[in-house]
């Protein structure tokens, strides 16, 4: 099967710092592979990935279940380590960064929406949303104000004090989205952020992402649905751990 790997063809200025120019590569993966090891069994979830994403881009990653989308997101988000290859995040080789640096990068620069939400069940919605700010040394009253604001943005202003167990799946997903936004990160990584939402709230969340994109944030969104992917400017298709195609979304 022939692969269309247009990613490598894309021109990108090398080593541009995070804050400069719209065209600076925020994410630069070269020859990246990820192999999972379960006992004696090895499974190559990703292989030979070349992917550059510039600041301010809105990219959708699509692919069948098990193709390695979440694995890719975990690598981009510095949650997992590469098996082979090189990953430059805003020009810095991630392999050279220690745990404290990585923690700070995740805290300041990246907002995650996990496929399984990952909310803390014992905390009220706003307490969940303020967590990134807790580790970002934001003072208490401001944390609360910003957490409330983020929840209002996702339409949950009336559920501030509810615990995750007291909310529907879609509401929990929106809490997860609010948590990703609250720190105003430059890069938002969202794994199926609309998977559990009906068309109305799905449209709301996607509208929010459009807005963030308009503000200059970089957005990487994983989805199954073409309709959702249509919001992005670029669509990367993954299959069996490889990039199958990487195209500008004609819209």
């Amino acid at each position, binding site marked *: 099967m022939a692969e269309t790997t247009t990613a490598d063809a894309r021109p990108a200025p090398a080593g541009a710092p995070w804050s400069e120019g719209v065209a600076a590569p925020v994410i630069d993966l070269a020859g990246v592979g990820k192999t999972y090891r379960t006992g004696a069994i090895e499974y190559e979830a990703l292989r030979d990935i070349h992917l550059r994403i510039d600041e301010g881009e809105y990219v959708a990653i699509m692919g069948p279940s098990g193709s390695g989308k979440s694995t890719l997101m975990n690598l981009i988000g510095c949650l997992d380590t590469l098996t082979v290859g090189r990953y430059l995040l805003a020009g810095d080789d991630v392999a050279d960064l220690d745990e404290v640096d990585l*923690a700070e990068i995740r*805290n300041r620069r990246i907002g995650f929406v996990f496929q399984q939400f990952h909310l803390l069940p014992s905390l009220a919605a706003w307490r969940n949303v303020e967590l990134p700010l807790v580790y970002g040394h934001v003072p208490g009253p401001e944390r609360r104000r910003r957490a409330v604001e983020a929840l209002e943005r996702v339409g949950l202003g009336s559920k501030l004090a509810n615990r995750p167990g007291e909310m529907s799946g879609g509401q929990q997903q929106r809490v997860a989205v609010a948590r990703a936004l609250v720190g105003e990160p430059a890069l938002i990584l969202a794994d199926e952020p609309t998977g559990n939402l009906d068309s109305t709230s799905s449209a709301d969340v996607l509208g929010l992402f459009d807005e963030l994109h308009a503000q200059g944030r970089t957005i990487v969104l994983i989805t199954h649905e073409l309709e959702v992917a249509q919001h992005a400017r670029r669509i990367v298709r993954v299959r069996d751990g490889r990039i199958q195609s990487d195209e500008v979304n004609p819209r």
Partner: protein
Amino acid sequence: MTWTETLRTGWAAIRSHGLRSTLTVLGILIGIAAVILTVGLGLGTQKDVSEQISSLGSNLLIVTPGSSTDSDGMRGGFGSAATLTRSDAQALASEVNTPDVAGVAPEKSTSLAVETSETNWTTTVVGTTPEWLDVRSRELSSGEFFTADDDAEAAAVVVLGSQTATELFGSTDVVGQVVTIADTPFTVVGVLASEGAAASADLDDLAVIPLTTAAEQVVGGSSRSSVSTIYVQAASADQLAAAYQETETTLLNLHSITDADSADFSINSQDSLVSTATAVYRTLTVLLTGIAGLSLLVGGIGVMNIMLVSVTERTREIGLRKALGAPPWAIRRQFLVEATVLGLAGGLLGAALGIVSARVLPDLLDTSIVVSGAAVAGSVVVAMGIGLVFGVYPATRAARLAPIDALRSE
């Protein structure tokens, strides 16, 4: 993450597992209370014993039959031998033999039933001489002590301890009443003043009769002339050493023994009794405190166990916090604070329980418990330290978890 934030999160985590946290705290609590109580009990008993010994009288030497330990480490006829007699006591009372001795009181004690027509009460019956009252520094609350004539005539008279009088007659106003000891009717001539609640119960529960009467009518048998103890009172504290020498020389002469090491009696001062008793109780206290300390160690292991369970259970939470930007030190601190809070809670509650028990137990057990501030403060600090130390391993384990592995764990 600030300290207040860490504390708030830790407290929330502890509260969310109420029962488990309570049980862990209980482990520490019991250990701390046990340490405070054993130390307190040890100190209290030492205090009781030294008070008891000093309440025997002042500047006393206590002569008992039986040798001190001989060169082979064997004890001579202790207890069995009736090596002290009334004539020994008379010789010790002589100005010539013992110029530094102020008074001598031989005692011949047995445990016997004292009866009235209504009731009976088993007490220590002490046969002695009239000097007993001065030598033992006792006073009468009513009546008189028996006289030398009473002793010479083997008169059937008795002086009762205040508790004995109360047990037999329901009051201490009993002079002139008759009690029966060993089938002989005795007239009560006096009642001893109580030594008060602080003193040992033995001091107020006894019946004192003339030594001759005791030998002839009450105890009898072959050991008729023997006595169980001779109390020798030095004229002053400064003369105690001299009195000791004189007593020893006199008795060795009387018993025709040349070598002091093979003496068939032993002489103890109150001080030496106190230090012997104190040494015994100190050893016991150290031993018991060691055992209590072990229970504290077990409590500490409990904290470690609970923290390990907590780390395992909250692996996903740790993963999430790391994913959202918690550096390893923040996670470590989180778990250390939780472990320390558990330890501290156990320490404070244990100290409270220890102090309360130290107030309540003496009423039930008839022993003093001395709670020292240092022991309380020390054990609270130790409890906190235990939480901290036993929290290090689980906290480090939590801090080392890779974020994605932690997030994915079930």
